[in-house]
């Protein structure tokens, strides 16, 4: 490791911890309570998916790539399908595109509810964590009733989708949406009014618009800093031209803004899903794909729950892609967060990390506190660091 010899304490966090789709390792150098330096190391769950995709055919890759992420799996399959369709010069029928957007928005609801719970947990607000995950089951049930799976829905085919949405199913979904909307309104109220919670979010982790632009932040993290980056609006794909969404922006750039942007996005998702269910175009579900995918390059950018997903595919005329590149939103946001925590209290680190919504996979994470001067070290678990944050704020609020 090259960037050692720090002054003060260096606190390694992870690798078994704050998620992404891979566990990551962070090292924070602190001067007292203030973080003076941050470092990130990834790759603990590097599975070589890009290489694996080059060795499988186009059909197999659809299933492989859906497993890039367990939370936003649909968006990866969708990005891949759209890219291959672009290479083959095929357009999926309008009903298929509408169903793709329907599932993508349901996935966004499930992802945002999940994130809200995890972030609340990091702040010590476990009641909200429990409630939001209970309500998330509603959307998981919808996804299961539509696709047969709670995760890795496998909704896409090259050229279309696998299933249709019937009238009865639509009626059932609309009922669940009413419930989810009411709950989301309640949570927004709690998150924007609860004084204890606001203490953990208001004015914390502020990222200005200029910073967000330079650091390449994407998704709700960027939009909470007033950066108008939402590909559903700026570069609509699939059925978004027919079913537009509104871009949610906030100019405060702190954690509170990141919460509110995501909550307002929930209402937008619910609104769009209702419209799709009521105005679903009547067409086929699948377009015919050629057997051979022609030579060419395709770039597809989609708006995942966490931000822009970037897919690059180069076809060489065989049944396998010559090169496939996936760039997920977390890598962009991680960049910004690693710079953002510098100057903040150590106690705020869990919240700021959670604030960008890295996919949380492991809950209990090892934190090692090592004293740089004399080499002694002390080991904390992530839950102890989290507790440290909660205690720090409950002390200071007295």
């Amino acid at each position: 490791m090259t960037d050692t010899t720090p002054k003060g304490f260096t606190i390694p966090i992870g690798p078994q911890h704050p998620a992404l789709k891979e566990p990551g390792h962070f090292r924070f150098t602190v001067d007292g309570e203030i973080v003076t330096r941050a470092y990130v190391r990834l790759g603990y769950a590097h599975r070589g998916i890009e290489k694996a995709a080059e060795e499988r055919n186009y059909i197999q890759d659809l299933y492989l790539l859906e497993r890039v992420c367990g939370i936003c799996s649909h968006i990866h399959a969708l990005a891949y399908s759209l890219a291959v369709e672009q290479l083959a010069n095929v357009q999926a029928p309008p009903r298929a595109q509408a169903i793709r957007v329907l599932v993508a928005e349901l996935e966004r609801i499930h992802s945002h509810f999940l994130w809200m719970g995890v972030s609340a947990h990091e702040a010590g607000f476990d009641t909200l964590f429990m409630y939001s995950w209970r309500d998330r089951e509603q959307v998981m049930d919808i996804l299961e009733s539509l696709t047969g799976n709670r995760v890795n829905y496998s909704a896409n085919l090259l050229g279309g989708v696998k299933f249709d949405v019937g009238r009865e199913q639509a009626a059932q979904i609309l009922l669940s949406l009413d419930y989810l909307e009411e709950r989301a309104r309640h949570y927004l109220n709690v998150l924007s009014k609860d004084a204890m919670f606001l203490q953990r979010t208001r004015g914390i982790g502020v990222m200005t618009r200029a910073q967000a632009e330079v650091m390449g932040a994407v998704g709700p993290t960027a939009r909470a800093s007033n950066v108008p980056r939402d590909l559903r609006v700026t570069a609509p794909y699939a059925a978004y031209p027919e079913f537009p969404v509104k871009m949610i922006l906030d100019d405060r750039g702190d954690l509170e803004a990141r919460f509110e942007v995501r909550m307002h996005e929930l209402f937008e998702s619910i609104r769009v899903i209702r419209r799709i269910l009521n105005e679903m175009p009547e067409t086929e579900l699948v377009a015919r794909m050629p057997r051979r995918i022609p030579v060419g390059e395709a770039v597809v950018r989609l708006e995942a729950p966490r931000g822009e997903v970037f897919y690059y595919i180069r076809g060489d005329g065989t049944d396998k892609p010559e090169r496939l590149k996936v760039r997920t939103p977390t890598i962009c946001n991680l960049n910004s967060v690693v710079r953002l925590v510098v100057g903040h209290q150590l106690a705020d680190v869990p919240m700021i990390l959670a604030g960008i919504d890295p996919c949380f996979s492991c809950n209990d994470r090892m934190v090692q506190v090592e004293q740089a001067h004399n080499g002694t070290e002390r080991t904390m678990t992530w839950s102890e660091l989290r507790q440290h944050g909660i205690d720090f704020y409950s002390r200071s609020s007295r």
Partner: protein
Amino acid sequence: MSRPRPERLDVKVKEIKQLLPIIVGLRVKRLGYLSAIVGVDLGVEANEIEVIYYFCPESAVIALRVRVPRQGATLASLSDVIPSAEVFERELREMFGIEITGLHTTDHLYLPDDWPDGVYPLRRDFDSAAIAGAGEKV
């Protein structure tokens, strides 16, 4: 290009040293943000690696393409102009073996610390036998 699409701009940068001024220009004009850097090994015969820098202003996509030899290639880091470039460059370095000058850290980003030197997994001629037994020592 066989089937051009709207809102795509494809630029072949002939000389590597022209790349940085172009990117500084994009940055100054606030033309998009760096969405990704993609490396493509063109194979042992071509003996070149194509590096594509994708800049995305709103719905458009600007691709800057530069070709480097497979052996001894060096590119200048963009991280002083665009801090977010660093992760993509570290990836390029460890996956394709392109030396990047001006990086703040040259640690592995994705690959294990004990990954053998000179083995680049996203190259065409990567042989998994080269890493047999790696990762077993703790």
